[in-house]
């Protein structure tokens, strides 16, 4: 379906990506701000020339290095950008049915499934941020795209709204069998949207894979950092990275260490605990999500997974 292997140049560093998607398949592109996530989407949308490689969609080459991108209108790639890019002088319905030859019945159906029926006659300026994103999504889907690129479409929304919209979008994409790429810096959002995640840093996809397996097996400290690893324990030349969600009360599994609480503050229904480890030859700072409050200076026995392990020399600054 999508077969992309390309590189584009950027002022700071080149951005390269290799992404394959089946029809209806989804992938999340996880990375920090400025890592090149949006650049990849812009290349897929044909806004940037490729310096290497090509992008094929449904068997057709839609971008090729050394060639001008084919007409954007023939790509059948949809893009929901961060600004939504709605036409301010058109109503919601006119926006949704903007594509030449768009079927109003299809537009109506998309609007209905995204909960927009009540505002079809409004102008974008009268809509909330979440509604605008919905309109942009409905518009892209009504145009009949085969690949939908989503640039942090849920980031400016409050959590319940973001979750609801994400569910609706996923259901629409499934129903229409449209492939999609979601760009985000939020791991949970990335996991909720797609089973596959690609981790991007400084213009390169460092690792790609099943979101759960990826979390437990980061291939580098940079990936670990983006997946939420915060703690590091050192012994000799060994370095173990520790994920706050994987620290638990001492049990038989993993590495058992004694830690001293430095700080403890509420984090949702749990507590975020900052601890110092100085035991069994292991030394370092770890963070944990803990179900109960732990007073500073208290010593606790904790278990942490003995992986992922890296070398002391690997760069790490928490």
């Amino acid at each position: 379906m999508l077969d992309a292997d390309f590189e584009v140049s950027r002022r700071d560093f080149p951005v390269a990506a290799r992404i394959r998607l089946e029809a209806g398949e989804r992938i999340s592109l996880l990375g920090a701000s400025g890592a090149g996530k949006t650049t990849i989407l812009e290349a897929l949308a044909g806004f940037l020339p490729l310096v290497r490689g090509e992008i094929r969609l449904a068997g057709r080459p839609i971008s090729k290095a050394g060639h001008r991108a084919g007409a954007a209108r023939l790509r059948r790639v949809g893009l929901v950008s961060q600004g939504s890019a709605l036409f301010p002088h058109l109503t919601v319905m006119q926006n949704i049915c903007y594509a030449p030859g768009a079927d109003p019945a299809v537009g109506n159906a998309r609007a209905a499934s995204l909960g927009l029926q009540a505002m079809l006659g409004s102008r974008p300026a009268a809509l909330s941020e979440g509604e605008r994103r919905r309109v942009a999504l409905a518009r892209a889907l009504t145009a009949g795209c085969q690949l939908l690129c989503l640039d942090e479409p849920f980031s400016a929304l409050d959590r319940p709204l973001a979750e609801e919209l994400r569910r609706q979008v996923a259901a629409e994409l499934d129903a229409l069998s449209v492939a999609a790429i979601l760009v985000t810096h939020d791991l949970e959002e990335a996991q909720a949207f797609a089973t596959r995640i690609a981790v991007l840093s400084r213009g390169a996809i460092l690792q790609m894979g099943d979101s759960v397996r990826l979390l437990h097996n980061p291939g580098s400290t940079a990936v670990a950092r983006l997946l939420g690893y915060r703690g590091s324990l050192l012994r000799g030349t060994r370095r173990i990275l520790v994920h706050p969600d994987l620290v638990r009360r001492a049990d038989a599994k993993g590495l058992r260490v004694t830690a001293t609480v430095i700080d403890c503050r509420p984090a949702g229904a749990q507590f975020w605990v900052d601890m110092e480890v100085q035991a069994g030859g292991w030394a370092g700072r770890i963070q944990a999500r803990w179900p109960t409050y732990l007073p500073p200076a208290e010593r606790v026995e904790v278990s942490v997974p003995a992986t992922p392990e890296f070398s002391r020399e690997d760069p790490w600054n928490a």
Partner: protein
Amino acid sequence: MIASGAGPRRVALAGPGTLVALVAAGVVWIALLGPVLTLLSHLSWHSITIALTQPGALQPLVVSLEASAVAVTVILLAGTPLAYMLARGRLPWARVWEAGLLLPLLTPPLVVGLLLVFMVGPATPIGAALAHLQLTAADTFFALVVAEVYEAVPYYVLGAEAAFAAVDPELERAASLLGDPAPRTWRRVTLPLAAPGLASALAVTWARSMGAFGAVLIIAYHPFGLPMQIWTTLQETGLYSALPFALVLLLVALPLPLAAYIWSARARRRL
């Protein structure tokens, strides 16, 4: 982006600073309106009737309307693509292009006229080339149009450039990604969104073109447009007798720009 209707419509009258600013604004406004009020106060119905009912009295008006219509059409057709390309940064050395546009604006119109004589006058190579097309750029309708274009074109292109620059290019990209051919995007997105600004620019251009004098005086004294008529009338029969023609010029040159301004202000508020 300001949500519709959310913008501050009423000015809070508070503080001495506001008062000073209001007084200054009022003085400027009255001073600007002054000439028009003066004109009206010095005109009698009688003098208007006498001046305008003489045989051929309205011929210069027809000449000015025709020449301006042609000049504005030329400016519109030639200036719009240029303004768009400038706004989108599609032209290399944008500053150089803009400097070129400013040149006729900064050069005194009289000098523009003088230089036009040496550029397109009958004795020049361009003049000779024009002669093959049965055109002469000296004291002809064609010369009048040329002079008006030179005096008015910067107003349109610079205004239109600003109007196009205000249209978010992301909207055009979004349209093309939705499958739009470029002309349709232009028609359905770019043009409607730039229209208010284009209308303002066009209004100013029309007024400038109708009132063009300096360059016209030198290369197109004939065929006698309205500004020339005012000039010769006041030279030959005195200031008073020129006033009715001044009124005609104002009446013809102003309504279109005013209507365009009012429409564009409304259109802007709607977005």
